[in-house]
């Protein structure tokens, strides 16, 4: 297919230019053209949330965004959640709380949780379950994921109040 476009993206703080076809999704370009394979593909139609990234601060399923639509966007992927070699509160809460089994949905859950906590630093259990309902996990039954999000929110609150 002709008509390739150059798209300029800022990914986890770094500006990058990528040559892509208009029919390529943001997910495909992240994974195949740019090797950001931490963002996972589970369904390609926006049902499972495994490919969630933050686009200008808003969580989107990257399989439903064309790469050309992301021109000029500020993206945050799972690779940009940790600060250098330090895991952030959400990541460490998932680890300490055993909130993952196979781990394929984990990047999407962590990114979606980052958006939740940015919007609502002190969510109730119901808030958490509602906000994460677009992210499917087939292994955990969600119990430990919800508890990890609660633990991360608390940890972040404590860190802020110090």
């Amino acid at each position, binding site marked *: 297919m002709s008509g390739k476009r150059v798209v300029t993206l800022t990914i986890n703080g770094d500006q990058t230019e990528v040559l892509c076809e208009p029919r390529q999704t943001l997910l495909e370009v992240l994974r195949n053209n740019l090797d950001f394979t931490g963002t996972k593909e589970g369904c390609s139609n926006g049902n499972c949330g495994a490919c969630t990234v933050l686009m200008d601060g808003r969580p989107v399923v990257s399989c439903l965004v064309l790469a050309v639509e992301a021109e000029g966007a500020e993206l945050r992927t799972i690779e940009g959640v940790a600060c250098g070699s330090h895991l952030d509160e959400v990541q460490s809460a998932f680890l300490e709380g055993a909130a993952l*089994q196979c781990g394929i949905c984990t990047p999407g859950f962590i990114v979606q949780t980052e958006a939740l906590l940015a919007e609502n630093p002190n969510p109730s259990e119901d808030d958490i379950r509602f906000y994460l309902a677009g992210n499917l996990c087939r292994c955990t039954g969600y119990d430990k994921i919800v508890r990890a999000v609660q633990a991360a929110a608390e940890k972040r609150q404590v860190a802020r109040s110090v």
Partner: protein
Amino acid sequence: MATADKPKYKVIGTRPVRHDGADKVTGRAKYGADIKLTGMLYGATLRSPHAHAKIKSIDTSKAEALAGVRAVVTSADLPEQGDRIVELGEGAANMRHLTANVLARGKVLYKGHAIAAVAADNIHIAEEAIKLIKVEYELLPPVLDVRKAMSAESPVLNDDIRTESVGSAPASKDSKPTNIAKHFLFEKGDIAAGFAKADVIVEREFDTSMVHQGYIEPHNATVFWNTDGKITVWLSTQGSFSVRQQTAELLKVAISNVKVVPTEIGGGFGGKISVYLPPVAAMLSKKSGRPVKLVMSRTSVFEATGPTPGSHMKVKLGATKDGKLVAGEAWIAFEAGAYTGSPIGPACMCVFACYDLPNGRVEGFDVCVNKPRTNAYRAPGSTHVAFATETLINEICEKIDIDPADFRIKNAAKEGVRRVDGPVYARVGMVETVEAIKNSEHYKAPLEGKHRGRGIASGFWFNCGLKSAASATVNPDGTVSLLEGSTDIGGSRTGIAMQLAEALGITAEEVTPTVGDTDSVGYCDVTGGSRVTFATGIAAIEAAKDIQRQLIARAAMIWDVDASKVSYSDGGLHGPAGKHLSFKEIAAKLHGTGGAVIGRGTSSEATQGGAFGTHCVDVEVDVDLGKVQILRYTAAQDCGTAIHPSYVEGQIQGGAVQGIGWALNEEYWYDEKGEMRNATYLDYRIPTCYDVPMIDTIIVEVPDPQHPYGVRGVGEVPICPPPAAIANAIYDAVGVRMHDLPMSPPKLLAEILKKES
């Protein structure tokens, strides 16, 4: 909660952070679809739009001519298999059926059946090329109902299937082909005499729909067929060695020519054992000379991998008025899908497995229908039959006015009880799981409110042993590198590392576990049958003992004493006159005393004693909509010894929620043409976190004497009780008994309206 005296362990029972955790929360973990090789091509698969048709012709010429297309394959590129049955580690497979499932031969037997595949420079070209392949079909009537498929008038799917009656001589090849591939019959005692003693008899018919494992990661395979004939397969799988063997058999090459490199795996639940893509990618690679990656779409995962069967069951139970089961009878028909191989055997063995049933008769049928070839799904076959038996048990309890927990305790399977299919139980924990529920805060708490109800149900799974291998190398800094071959779906590498650490007296963090490829580690059977923590754990413990023996020899050499004077305990070596070397100290001396110490261990003889669980659920029914809300859930399970309690809880919680999805919503919804009309996550709809509450767990520990630390597999049992427990709770809430899964809003509402009128 421990129900048995627990020995004190240092590592076992603690909750270390898993070794692969950092990679999985940062996106660094490599799953199957993340593989990218130099010169790699991308593949796409042409799939049948029809459920049942003859293939008259396939024309791939236009696809081959498209710029960017490097190879096209059809079943003509795969070798003929003839009549071969091959043992694949967890059951045998008919190779003719296996190869026809990989790429259709002459006939398509379900919508989504793979017909041809293309490798191209990118996925978009491959998908365009697929549309250029012309297939001429002769449509045949689809066979979609298990009972109709059994009738003499039904169209027959496979001309080489005749009923195989287990324990009887094979049917003559001259006899007429049929859709009934297998027939099981188990009998114990005298059922007529048994039912004659019964004061109450209940008999009901049950139906369940086909459901999918629903793992989030689609099937994938990247294969490179090198010029020297060596084939390397990168993929996510539950069994690297099984993939090696299936791929080699399907391609008719030596297994030593196939190397399987397992990546991280995004869920399996039984569905990632059978091979679909590797032989196809291998042929595309052979033709193109390049590595080829194939990844399934979500719709193909639903339509063309191996869900668990739908079923029709008739079950009858009799009990005396003082609450003793006297007889049981079951007739069970499972949809095998396109080819034989449903878990009808295990279903027949599980149907009365929770109870001490003196007289029983179980008959089962494996029936081909125009749906995908079914495969294992978490305790295969057991959830279906638990739905039937466990709802009948509660109906009996109501009729004779006895508490369902007390009834289960009174009739529970225990050590020495013989199952209807023959085996006698060793020490098992059925009674303990029911007692745990009976004594739980949940069961004792009053349940108030309109249209609310409580139900309990139990479940059983055998758990297996099979074969595992591990090796472990002592590093100079006193740590150990553990290599094992069981692909890790839910944290098992940490559970295995913890057992090695316990045996050596070091910490879990001092062991680095790696899941090896088929050229670097000894043979391991699949990650299935709840066997890995048990059997690969034993292999790791054996490797630790081997390390101890070698370290004893080194210490004897250093101290210049006879090895018989040296012992290993508490993480160190002890010699005469108070001589002592810690593990760390001896590890630092290995280079100067003979080099590397590598422990090796295998497990092949050990078998597990079986595991039980009992669940309690509170529901609220919306009587206007027929929708069921889960209010509270508690699951008790005998785990023998919990190695890493967090991951044991996680298995129970995850299994329970899969069971909730099966109970209330999930089903393959077919139209009359045999097209699955809900082949997306949105329409199939597995539970989301908004659908379920917290899942409370009670870990019951009745150690299995066949494992050094008492492990019982934990993964499969928890999916068995939920549908029956929820059905029992619905009855308690609104007074209707459900006999059809899923108990979705339209079906429940219909029953509620029927009762009201």
